[in-house]
């Protein structure tokens, strides 16, 4: 054999061997290897999770939630599918609650002020020490006989915790319970109470309506009960076995909700009430309204003629008439009033106007309209009267009439206009106790901090307001043990009450707050027929309730007539438009401050997920911006991202420009939520807070600061801003990305076209 041939042979042999190995590999069954790198994530063996029902406390809506617990840690929050408010769904803030729970900037345990007030200098102390110090202070105040100088400042506390604090205050001898939240719908409550004699916020039945006319209600992101209303919205649009409902939004800018509307009606800021009344007048005049008091309505609405309204609202007459025609002819229709109609100096009037509109169109008390809610299960014991507002506390503090302040879970130093100087006022209070979880602008003023558990770590209950037409009682249970050295607020209050002794101690229930909740529910069980009917014994009922997350008589809606009479509302109807600070010549632009989807009133700003969540409308992350119409911006000579100064008669702030076609040229808008000076690493020194430059204008009837009651001017700074937005281009360039279909091209048509 020649050498060359030998090599050929070797070569061929090598190939043959390779072939053999390959075939050998090929016919092996899969999975006979060592730990392969070929593991798609689906083969990771899932762990076993436990689910606990509770209620979401990120806003006041009270969605029922399920918390996924693995290894004693909360992993995910999801809507409780059984729960009538959330129906298994949840909004951004609800989802992000866990990052509030596990926030690295939570106050880890009791703190006592060390340095000067407001310098954020605290030292950790033990719970015993903290409780005894506060008890001593309470006693001291009581000994001085200044019991009525004790103030309690909280967000609206839900359920039995609220009742416990009421008892505490009553036992102590003080009536100064101040509930404050930037968006707590006081105007809405007041207007409903005045117009319809309703204590509870009614259920706005978006789900079943065929025509939704919204006056600036941003229900898709923040307004009232966003998850519940959004669920209704989805059904209204594409629910099975029904026609597609039409949706018109009146708002000076295209909010997230307005973006979903079929028509956007950019009425001039402050004129929304006039528009509502003008539509009501058209309806009454057309003879659609057949009530006995039609002539009274006619008289009341007489000043709101179409010409006047068109001029005041800066809208086309045809458009107003068109809306009026559709609104009355489409059955059922529904008008709702949100922030942009209520955030003026005459906010209550606007909301009353919406009620009038609903009344004359015949939308009150019907399916697909406004449906009354029962008083919650506390009826009679804790009426939801509109109590004193934050301005009462600030006035008292300025007058040095506050002896001691108990503060929990809100941030007036951030959410009240800069001109009010809330922080300055609170510095006059000799002793402030805070139960807050985060060191924010208000908490830092306190002398001692007794951090409360978060809702995931604590017992509690929530009674939905607005409820979906029937009562919803949600039970909260501790789903994990406290992450930090915090204590149940209920336990703390009870212990303080017992420590002070006397009348307070008597009012305090025995045992722990957990016992108290169970006991209270057993009372509810025995008082409430629906509850007792659902289970044989209370223990059984309690076990079921803990598992399902609460109690609600599903679908037990009681028809309840609702009406508005001219007499009741006459004093709220006036031709006088909203007042704005700043002369139009000097300050040519209206400023709209609105709740940002993720941050609401600023409370979400310390949650990294929400900071990094692009704003649904502008896609801006990690900062604030000011929305300006491109035409206005061209006139001012500013472009996207430029830093500008927004100056009102009460101050100025800086913010980068966001050019937005969807805003009136005479209006600029800024989101609320950023601009914290103190609120943990994720929130601090980021963006600007538009509330700082707002006037202290309040609606006298409710004490609510009017967010949209100032004009501003925009000044160039010449510097680039720090705008970070995720959308580079919002121009579709004809690429058919979001495809649309004209109404009527499918089976679902807007009902108005039937007429």
């Amino acid at each position, binding site marked *: 054999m020649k050498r060359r041939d030998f090599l050929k042979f070797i070569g061929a042999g090598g*190939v043959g061997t390779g072939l053999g190995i390959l075939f050998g*590999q090929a016919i092996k069954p899969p999975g006979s290897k060592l730990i392969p790198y070929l593991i798609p994530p689906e083969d990771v063996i899932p762990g076993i999770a436990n689910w606990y029902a509770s209620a979401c406390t990120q806003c006041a809506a009270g969605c029922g939630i399920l918390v996924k617990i693995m290894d004693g840690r909360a992993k995910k929050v999801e809507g409780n599918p059984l729960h009538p408010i959330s129906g298994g769904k949840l909004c951004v803030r609800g989802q992000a609650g866990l990052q509030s729970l596990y926030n690295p900037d939570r106050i880890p345990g009791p703190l006592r002020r060390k340095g000067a007030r407001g310098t954020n200098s605290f030292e950790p102390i033990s719970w015993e020490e903290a409780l005894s110090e506060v008890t001593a202070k309470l006693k001291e105040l009581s000994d001085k006989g200044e019991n009525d100088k004790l103030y309690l400042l909280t967000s609206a506390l839900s359920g039995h915790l609220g009742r416990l604090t009421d008892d505490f205050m009553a036992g102590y001898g003080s009536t100064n319970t101040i509930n404050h939240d930037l968006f707590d719908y006081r105007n809405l409550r007041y207007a409903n109470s005045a117009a319809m004699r309703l204590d509870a916020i009614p259920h706005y039945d978006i789900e079943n309506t065929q025509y939704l006319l919204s006056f600036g209600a941003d229900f898709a992101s923040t307004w009232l009960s966003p998850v519940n209303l959004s669920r209704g919205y989805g059904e209204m649009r594409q629910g099975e076995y029904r026609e597609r409902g039409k949706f018109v939004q009146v708002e000076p800018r295209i909010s997230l909700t307005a973006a979903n509307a079929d028509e956007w009606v950019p009425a001039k800021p402050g004129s929304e009430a006039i528009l509502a009344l003008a539509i009501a007048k058209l309806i009454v005049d057309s003879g659609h309204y057949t009530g006995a008091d039609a002539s009274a309505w006619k008289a009341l609405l007489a000043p709101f003629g179409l010409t006047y309204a068109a001029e005041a609202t800066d809208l086309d007459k045809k458009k107003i008439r068109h809306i009026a025609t559709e609104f009355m002819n489409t059955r059922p229709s529904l008008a709702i009033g949100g922030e942009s109609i209520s955030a003026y100096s005459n906010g209550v009037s606007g909301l009353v106007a919406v009620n009038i509109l609903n009344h004359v169109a015949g939308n009150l008390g019907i399916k697909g309209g406004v449906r009354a809610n029962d008083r919650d299960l506390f009826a009679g014991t804790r009426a939801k009267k509109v109590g004193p507002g934050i301005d009462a506390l600030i006035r008292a503090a300025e007058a040095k009439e506050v002896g001691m302040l108990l503060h929990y879970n809100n941030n007036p130093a951030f959410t009240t206009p800069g001109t009010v100087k809330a922080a300055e006022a609170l510095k006059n209070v000799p002793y402030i106790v805070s139960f807050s979880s985060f060191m924010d602008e208000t908490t830092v003023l306190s002398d001692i901090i007794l951090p409360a558990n978060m809702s995931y770590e604590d017992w509690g209950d929530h009674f939905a307001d607005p409820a979906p037409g029937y009562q919803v009682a949600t039970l909260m249970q501790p789903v994990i043990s406290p992450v930090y050295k915090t204590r149940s607020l209920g336990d703390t209050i009870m212990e303080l009450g017992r420590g002070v002794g006397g009348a307070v101690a008597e009012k305090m229930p025995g045992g722990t707050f957990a016992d108290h909740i169970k006991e209270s529910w057993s009372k509810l069980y025995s008082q409430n027929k629906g509850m007792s009917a659902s289970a044989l014994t209370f223990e059984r009922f309690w076990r079921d309730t803990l598992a399902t997350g609460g109690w609600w008589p599903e679908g037990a809606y009681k028809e309840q007539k609702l009406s508005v009479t001219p007499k009741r509302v006459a004093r709220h109807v006036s031709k006088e438009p909203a007042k704005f600070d700043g002369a139009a010549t000097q300050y040519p632009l209206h400023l709209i401050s609105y709740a940002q989807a993720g941050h609401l009133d600023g409370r979400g700003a310390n949650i990294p997920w929400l900071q990094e969540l692009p704003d649904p409308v502008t896609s801006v992350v990690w900062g604030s911006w000011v929305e300006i119409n491109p035409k206005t911006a061209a006139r001012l000579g500013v472009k996207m991202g430029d830093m500008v100064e927004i100056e009102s008669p009460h101050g100025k702030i800086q913010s980068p420009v966001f050019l937005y076609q969807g805003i009136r040229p005479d209006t600029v808008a800024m989101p609320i939520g950023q601009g914290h000076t103190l609120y943990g690493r994720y929130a601090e020194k980021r963006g600007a807070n538009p509330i700082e430059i707002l006037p202290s204008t309040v609606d006298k009837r409710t004490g609510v600061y009017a967010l949209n009651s100032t004009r501003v001017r925009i000044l160039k700074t010449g510097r680039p801003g720090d705008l970070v937005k995720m959308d580079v281009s919002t121009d579709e360039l004809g690429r058919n990305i979001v495809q649309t279909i004209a109404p009527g091209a499918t089976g679902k048509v807007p009902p108005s076209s039937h007429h």
Partner: protein
Amino acid sequence: MNQPVLGLFPHVDSMVEAAVGLKDTGYTVTVFSPIPLGDALDPIVVRKNYIRYFALFGAFIGLFFGIILTLGTAALYVLPRGGLPIWPITPTLLLTYESIILFGVIWTLIGFFIVARKPNFGKQIYDPKVAIDSFGLLVEDIREDKIEEVEQLLKSFGADEVNRVEKS
């Protein structure tokens, strides 16, 4: 005992003439040169091109290697991707093309090593001058009595230098 003789020529043509003459006489001649002489050597020796078989063989191995590698391994783990067939044609062709070239090149090199008997670090007859400007003519298989004659012959053809050489 054969004593090889190396004649160093300054000119190609004289060297070739000498080589032809000696070869015709029956001596074994080997030409050393600093440059490839190509067809100038045709009068002395014509060689067959064996390299082409190696190249062809390498190309065939490459062909099989490419096909087996791509198709065989695809059968090893059946992982669909992008809606392409598990045994896709175009990539197989492409990779086979590359492997044909790779193996063709490698086998050509191996072929050269074999037919040129390289590397060879053993003792060989060599004169560094042939790497510069001399054309060497090595004459082997000389009967002992003919050495002088060959030397004379080389000189007469124009060799600068004629040496009796040994393997070094």
